[in-house]
């Protein structure tokens, strides 16, 4: 029987949740017995090759590219898991949410105290995805099946969830795994 597939991506995140995922250390060898990776930075597959059982999303949606990728994940994955603070709440990138987009760009490229920008240009290349007016948590954009808080969630948390799902067991995390203060 073909192994189920897992896809992962980092949207408006810092890759910290992926690092935490890699912190499962040698357990990744057990994991790879159970699953194959599809589209993911872990194996560098850029596009989906088929249907996936699980999609792990890191980061919220800050630009149109994030939304496109998230839509793609929703289309290709049976179970979408929002991993970490940015995905579930917007996280640090959402600090710009109280400031109009134009002001944000001007502060970043024109007015900030450390800016050297003699051409007074705000980058505007066709290749740069358009920014959304705000940073949105993923569950406001598509339906998400599991939301895991934490910045980042620990490797053990991610491991528990994946093994539970792969073994068709209910995801029942011990208090210590979801307690953050």
């Amino acid at each position, binding site marked *: 029987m073909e192994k189920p597939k897992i896809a992962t991506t980092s949207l408006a995140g810092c890759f910290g949740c992926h690092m935490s995922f890699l912190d499962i250390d040698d357990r990744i060898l057990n994991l790879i017995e159970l699953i194959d990776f599809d589209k993911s930075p872990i194996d560098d597959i850029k596009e989906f090759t088929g249907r996936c059982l699980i999609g792990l999303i890191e980061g919220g949606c800050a630009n*149109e*590219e994030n*939304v*496109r990728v998230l*839509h793609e994940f*929703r*289309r290709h994955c049976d179970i*979408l898991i929002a991993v970490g603070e940015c995905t579930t709440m917007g996280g640090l990138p959402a600090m710009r949410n109280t400031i*109009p*987009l*134009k002001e944000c*760009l001007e502060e970043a490229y024109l007015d900030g105290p450390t800016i050297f920008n003699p051409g007074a240009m*705000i980058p*505007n290349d*066709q290749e740069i*995805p*358009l*920014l*959304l*007016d*705000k940073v*949105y948590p993923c*569950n*406001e*954009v*598509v*339906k998400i099946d599991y939301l895991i808080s934490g910045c980042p969630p620990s490797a053990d948390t991610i491991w528990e969830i994946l093994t539970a799902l792969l073994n068709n067991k209910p995801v029942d995390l011990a208090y210590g795994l979801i307690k953050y203060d």
Partner: protein
Amino acid sequence: MMKYSEREVKEICSAYSCDSSRMMDILRDIQKRFGCVPEEVIDLIAGQVDVARVEVDSTVSFYAFFSKTPKGEVVIRLCNDIIDRMNGSDVIAEVFSRELGIEFGETTPDNKITLEYTPCIGMCDQAPSALVNEVVITDLSSDKVRSIVKTLKETGDPLKLVSRLGDGFNAHHLVKSMVHNCIRRKGKVVFAFADCDPNAGLEKAISMSPVEVINVIKNARLRGRGGAGFPTGMKWEFTRGAEGNKKHVICNADEGEPGTFKDRVILTELSNLLFEGMTIAGYAIGAENGILYLRGEYAYLYDFLASVLNFRRKKGFLGSNILGKPGFNFDIRIQMGAGAYICGEETALISSCEGSRGDPKNRPPFPAQKGYLSSPTCVNNVETLCCVVRILDKGAAWFAEMGSMGSAGTKLLSISGDCQSPGVYEFPFGISVRELLREVGAINAVAVQIGGPSGQMIGEDDFDRTICYDDLATGGSVMVFGSERNILEAVKCFMDFFTEESCGYCTPCRVGNVLLKRCLENIIAGKGEPSDLDYLKDLGETIKTASRCGLGQTSPNPILTTLQNFRPVYEALVHEAKDGCRPSFDIHAVLKDAQNITGRKSVYF
């Protein structure tokens, strides 16, 4: 630059002995005198009263009736609760806006008139209504609005707007208000007072020992009329037994629950009864100090109530050795509120009386142990204190016989909305909603909001349920909705109210209610999904469980009770999303800013 004189600020502070617990009065006087409380004046007050600047600042910014920036000489506050909207306040708002040439929240260029919205001002029986400075204008029509604007532009005097005076003491020279009492049904307890001897209750009380008085109240099974229904005798007993030399009686006349206006009528017509009740409470718990906390919206009654207090002092019903009883000293002062719903919550009310933001306090300690200025304090509703007098006069058995099992006596109900005779009704507890609707002439009612937004909305299936503490508890607000009304619009109106009035102290209430409201708006806009209904329920329960005070513990009720009683209304609006994409997320709308800034279109959407 604001015009203010340092001397005047100092005078106002001195008038209250530079006492920080009288901050509300100081700020009210400043606001009245200068039209605002500017930053420089905040500095001055902080220096005079000797408190941190931030304390003054946070108090100023907390209350709707204080402002740091100048407003017009006349501030028109149009009530925008659901009953006023049902009576056409939207049209009224449009006409005000058009006639004045400004939007809501703005001031005319000549700085004469400011236009604002305000939540329920306690006039739902004569809606739409507005406050013009402290003057209440009722039964507004687009015609009236035109003449109001004309008069204000010509004279700038809100008092000129009152042409015909209301009934009873509304016509008293110290009130001069166009408000009507709308007393529709007089019961045996509160509204029967006119037939009795003044002070009969107080005289009987002082012929007994304080403990005996408390026992009478306990035997009468009197419970608090504000809505929570705590046994009054027990509250008095706790306060009496609490440690502390100075004790206080506070009457909660911050009648802010939308749709409630029965205290307004008591304050107008039966103020002597109320003050007598407070005096009895003072005697029973051993307090010498009483405070009537009067909501800012009822400021038009202040002079009148103050004159009643003076009258009672002159007659020896207040002051030292009351009615010749040696050592029985009690007096009452009026504390004005300044437009904050949360101050109806007793611990927030105490904070406000102490001159601070109306922040609720942690319980325990309960006010009975440690309340106003850290002394044992008994906070009672206006109607409760009126019942006290009648119980002392007529006896506990007389009172306990009326009403239903767990709910003795009568209840004043403020009934508004889709009925022929909105107004105040006094019924014995235990009346069914169906009977009530018949009495008030509500022919096509499909929904009734019992107990205001913080209560519950019931449908026809529940009309045989009864008004009492064991079934449908209410502080008095009953809003009737006819078959042509959109239930969810009412729910949204209530959620707007709660998000606005949340004090912001605790996260479940401050953030949770906004999330509830946002989800509800999506559903109303047809962008909701079936899973949203579970989300609303879960989030609502969380807010109720995790909030610090009564506001957050009840604010999800409009949604939770309608989800339970009117679920088909919600279900008809929600649809399963295609492809798992949220219908409420509009990618084109959220890209608009970036497209305008960059001048290019999205490559994907």
